[in-house]
């Protein structure tokens, strides 16, 4: 599964060393992208030309959204299909996805994180 750097939009394959050490641009936040959506994402990335300032702002906003408990110096992989940040201040929310209790971020080993923002839904699953 590919990953995309939030800051510079570069794509990395699963297991790439950049995912562990951080992207060449210094970004440590990656979007997790499903293979079937990769082509769409590449097209969107070409169409929307975000300035560096916008990218930094989005990165900052995403950090604020997922909570302060994550370590900003470690690479973080986001599965943000439930929330799309089109540009700073413009958000699209997939409610069906959000209600489905799927985690927004995955923590893998070696400094990668999984933060289950919807962990309280676990209770429902156990019922």
């Amino acid at each position, binding site marked *: 599964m590919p990953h995309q750097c939030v800051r510079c939009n570069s794509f990395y394959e699963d297991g790439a060393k950049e995912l562990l050490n951080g992207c060449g641009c210094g970004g440590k936040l990656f979007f997790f992208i499903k293979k079937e959506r990769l082509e769409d994402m590449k097209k969107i990335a070409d169409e929307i030309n975000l300035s560096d300032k916008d990218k930094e*702002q989005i990165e900052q*906003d995403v950090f*604020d*959204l997922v909570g302060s408990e994550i370590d900003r110096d470690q690479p973080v992989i986001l599965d943000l299909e439930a*929330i799309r940040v089109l540009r*700073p*201040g*413009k*958000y*699209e*929310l*997939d*409610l*069906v996805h*959000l*209600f489905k209790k799927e985690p*927004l971020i995955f923590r893998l080993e070696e400094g990668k994180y999984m933060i289950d*923002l*919807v962990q*309280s*839904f676990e*209770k*429902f699953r156990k019922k």
Partner: protein
Amino acid sequence: MINIVRSFINKVLRGIFKKKKNFKLGLYGPPNGGKTTLANRICKDWLGQDMGTVSNIAHETREVQIKEEISIKSKGKELTFNLVDTPGIATKIDFEDFIKSGMKEKQAKERAKEATKGVIDAIKWLDEMDAVVIVLDATKDPYTQVNVTIVGNLQARNIPVLIVANKSDLKKADIKKVQAAYPQYNVIGISAKYGNNIDQFYEGLFAIAG
């Protein structure tokens, strides 16, 4: 004999514990439906105080608000609950909408971010609820993706629901249309702002809490 005493003590302790677990009543719905206005109405009626601030600009409530131990009485019955007012649930949050309402860009972007987080929090809280009041704006189309998603998810979780068709004081309000959209639910037309039909709403609360 010891067993009898022990089971008696257990029963008493369980009784106390049960009473301590407060019934949680959640207010859910799209932005600007009047959730906080209704929360304020309930708090004013039974506690004599307000709960939160209201605004014409959408997404005024961006954090989950809780008011504990509200006791309401109707026809000799009493119901005590914790009232949970939640941020409005939306599929699209755009700072430009706030700018149109006269907000500065930086403030509008911050509001959009907080509102997005608010949606996540509202959904997170859903499983904590014992019953939910869905507050809809009766002047607007009731068949939206947000409304249908909220109603469907509550149904899937077996959480008792009361639907309020708010803003009945406005000319454009169409309570019957909301009732037709959700025929399997008790839909009560009210004006949270002016308190119209509020007694029937309190009756409805007893019905979903019982």
